[in-house]
């Protein structure tokens, strides 16, 4: 394994950790969504890196699918944010614990 390959993996791990930390700490649902994107990108990075190490294209194809899922997730997530904000402007993720029914 080349040292640069290890570099990709380490970078991806740090990026993932930052995303996870942000998801756990931030309250704004939009920012939380962005943090999810960060984590997804970290994973994408490892996929491509591993694919390169193994000389396999499957890693890149998987990333393509992750992209699609991420797009779908953002669409639905934003839909939820819009619906939430319409009922209560300025609501944070902590506020939706009163959701019921």
């Amino acid at each position, binding site marked *: 394994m080349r040292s640069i390959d290890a570099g990709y993996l380490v970078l991806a791990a740090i990026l993932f950790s930052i995303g996870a930390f942000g998801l*756990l700490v931030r309250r704004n649902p939009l920012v939380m969504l962005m943090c999810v994107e960060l984590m997804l990108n970290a994973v994408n990075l490892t996929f491509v890196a591993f694919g390169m190490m193994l000389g396999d294209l499957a890693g890149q194809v998987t990333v393509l699918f992750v992209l699609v899922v991420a797009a779908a997730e953002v669409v639905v997530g934003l839909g939820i944010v819009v619906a939430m904000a319409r*009922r209560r402007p300025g609501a944070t993720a902590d506020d939706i614990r009163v959701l019921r029914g």
Partner: protein
Amino acid sequence: METTAVEYVVFALCAVIVLAGAFGVIWFRNPVQAALSLVATLFGVAVLFLNMNAQFLAAVQVIVYTGAIVVLILFVIMLLGVDVEEDLEEEPLVGQRVIALVIAAGVAGLVVAGVTLGGADLVSGARSVTGSIVDDVSNIEQIGRLLFTEYVFALEITAVLLTIAVIAAVVMSRRPSEVEPLPAENASMEPPEPMEPEAEEVFD
């Protein structure tokens, strides 16, 4: 495959950009600033893709992520006017930040330690027979062939997934005729404005 000096330089630069952008996402209180930081990160990742000979993915990354997703997020921020600055001084959930920090540090530390300790044995998977990377064929052609042969079912299923997502988004963001406002926990919160009656109802 030999590693060129250019590769190292590009990696180092991009790594700095990516991490700085990521920090920006979780650091800025204003969501607009966070979204712009995200663009930096995504762009950095796109360049890293290029560095790893994944040209098609780099292009898609720029178009889909920075061009579509972030723009969508920014659009929602502007539409809803939720670009209020978040108060990050206080944390209502006891211990949330400490534990989050432990988790983040633990994940990063464990992976870094694993990569360092694992060394050459870390990547020991078998190489794919059908989808191995061939140097003299363009990246986009290879991915295209693979997508429409080996992964054709997965591709079709993503189409279904996207359709479902579109329908879900429409259903959720539709303006309902009667909206029950969430009970206000905080007294300072403004009650939602009363819904305007639909035009048809007025004429009825």
